[in-house]
């Protein structure tokens, strides 16, 4: 559900983006990219607005929005962890790092924690293979990320802002069945 304020922001952003890029079918992807850049994700409302402006059915906007990997349909967390799953990182512990994030944050790649503090994603090679396994935190690249480092990273970003409540989710993160299931999919 969107709050009243959010609705306004979305509508304003979308019409500004449409005005800047022009409402042409060919501009669909740049339009979606611009909306995402400003809002952090693609709200359904924005996609419907774009569809109306381009005079195409909404599914023709939802299609590309779900087809391409770079679009997110949910608001991102305050901090984003992107775990590199490129070849070099994968072979040297990328999966272990990803598992650790999933275990600690209790979310899967593509998701955001309920408090919207963190989101988790996978990326392909970010070009720093010599530092594998690599995690991109917001826009910083962290190299040689072990499970201990994963804990450290989460902790450092938690303590950066307000102190997070030690809710049950966090402490029960040792559910082994969950954690062992490999890609969890």
């Amino acid at each position, binding site marked *: 559900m969107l709050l009243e304020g959010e609705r306004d922001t979305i509508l304003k952003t979308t019409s500004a983006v449409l005005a800047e890029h022009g409402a042409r*079918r*060919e*501009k*669909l*992807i*740049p339009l*979606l*990219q611009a909306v995402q850049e400003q809002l952090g994700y693609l709200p359904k409302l924005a996609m419907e607005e774009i569809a109306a402006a381009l005079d195409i059915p909404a599914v023709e906007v939802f*299609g*590309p929005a779900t*087809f*391409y*990997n*770079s*679009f997110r349909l949910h608001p991102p967390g305050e901090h984003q962890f992107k775990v590199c*799953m*490129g*070849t*070099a990182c*994968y*072979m*040297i*512990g990328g999966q*272990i790092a990803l*598992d*650790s994030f999933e*275990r*600690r944050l209790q979310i899967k790649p593509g998701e955001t924690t309920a408090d919207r503090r963190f989101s988790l994603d996978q*990326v*392909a*090679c*970010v*070009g*720093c*293979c*010599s*530092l*594998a396994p*690599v995690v991109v935190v917001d826009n910083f*690249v*962290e*190299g040689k990320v*072990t*499970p*201990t480092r*994963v*804990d450290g990273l989460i902790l450092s970003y938690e303590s950066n802002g307000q102190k997070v409540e030690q809710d049950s989710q966090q402490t029960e993160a*040792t559910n*082994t069945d969950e*954690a*062992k299931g*490999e*890609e969890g999919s």
Partner: protein
Amino acid sequence: MSILSATETKYQALREKAEAKLAPLAAETIIWIGTATCGKAAGAVEVREAFKAELKNKGIDAEVREVGCMGHCYAEPLAVIAKPGFPAICYGKVDEGLVTRLVDDFLINDDPCYEFALVALEPNDVFPTFSDFPRGVYENKMILEQCGFIDPEDIDHYIAKDGYSALAKALNTEPQQVLAEINGANLRGRGGAGFPAGVKWEAVVKQVEKTRYVICNADEGDPGAFMDRSILESNPHLVVEGMIICAYAVGAGHGYLYIRSEYPQAIRRVQTALEQARERGLLGKSIMDNGFAFDLEVFTGAGAFVCGEGTALINSMEGKLGMPEHRPPRLSTAGLRGKPTVLNNVKTFAYVPLIMKKGADWFKNTGTAESPGTAVFALAGKVENPGLVEVPMGTTLRQLIYDVGQGIPGEKEFKAVQIGGPSGGCLPEASLDIPIDFDSLKEGGAIMGSGGIVVLDEDDCMVRIARYFLKFTQQESCGKCTFCRLGTKHMLDILTAITKGEGKLSDLETLRELAEDVQVGSLCNLGRTAPNPILTTLQYFYDEYKAHIEEKRCPSLMCPDLIAYFIAPEQCSKLCNACVGSCPVEAVYTRDDGLKAIDQEKCVKCDNCLKACPIEYNAVIKLSPPALLAEKEGSTK
């Protein structure tokens, strides 16, 4: 005596202006920091700031500037100090301590701290240069030559180093002559397939339709490759110049660089490059006053591997789903907006200015008869010196791995080299003497591909790597054709079962049959090449598959379902607690007798305790199959 043409006059003016602007730099002390993505990841920004702060604190007159990637990623962050009176010297693994040292000892006191130097960039009597190292002997930098040595955000650096002179030369001849030069050089496309660029361009020239496009494919989807990104971040004008020359040859009025969204810094640097080129009349209505009009813009990809495929790329540029189409028609007849279109890879365009400047024969002097020129690789995995390398075509894999990459780190044994990414294959030791060129690699079952090379050692499981690539292609399969959509899924399921110890020997036959069906039945090369990682690993590493199936054993101790961690009591020290603290899930505990043990129910196989255990004890070991555990535990209770 010929009089200078308008183009030549214009170019000379640009060149003189650039040189005049840069001349005073020779008398200044300049610190260059490599801030491509790889450098930044290693801490280049902190190093840059540390230099700036030190210089300011100590009141030293020197400039800090940024360059791209030199290709020596293993030694990042890199800094080059050019001080008048000394050869320019490159320092590797620079940290804040070294920054202080360099400023105090070198900048203030003239001691270049050779003990920390990696290499000198100019021949001199005191310190070795790149060509004195084994890597330098094998490397032959054509398109990477200036990467890391010029400021990618200042067009004058490129112009002062002869940049855009090839364009001036091209504009002074007829388009057919440009075409003849590229054809004469037998420049083959570097995006993977090795199709001759000249033939492609000629097909566009032959079209009646006069609205034509030039597109640079910078989608670089191979999950282990970053050459194209590095080139765009380190020397964007080389690619831009190549594209303008191509546009002139084929008569295109507009072009695009299709860059994947995961490369924000490359996008930014290319945009800056385009603006600066436009300001100087190198793009726009009348390029270098020659009357030829052409402009370029960036299209940011939206993230789909299949969009690297030409027809899918066009669809995505038109705002549609990035799905491939049946060919023909080829892009050269009906590409973007149905118009004749040239699509080439970043590297392909990067060779164009060099060939124009130095001639087809110069280009053909390097490499092999059928694959002239050089090959650029992102060398990664288990090699001592990973990074971006450029070697002549025909160099063997062995030379690339052992001489350029300096071999396998530790005492580990080489197992395989994965070349060509998700469409490529894994080659064993016995294939290491295959020369690297488009045709030889294909015979070995791999492909040249986009240039990702990952070296694997004894700790890497071949079933797992096959599964890794298949999972990638399965996820990226656009779903349009059945063979690719269902075939990759089915093969992935089989491989997953095998890595869990749930496979049957008959599965291997099914895998092979499926692989062959998907190879012939798929619509585009994503599907047609997806089975390569499976087929090559089945061919060369059949025993590993068998071990997974028959013994439930992962010979490389990598598949989590087939290994168990165990602390050998005879090696464990009661005094040490390193493993207990390292465990993220509290699976490691202290037994009543003070020794440590692992609760297998809780263990998530993260490898932390093994890494944490001090080398003098080496008490944590991995066992495969996990059934060995009962035996071990029984014997020690």
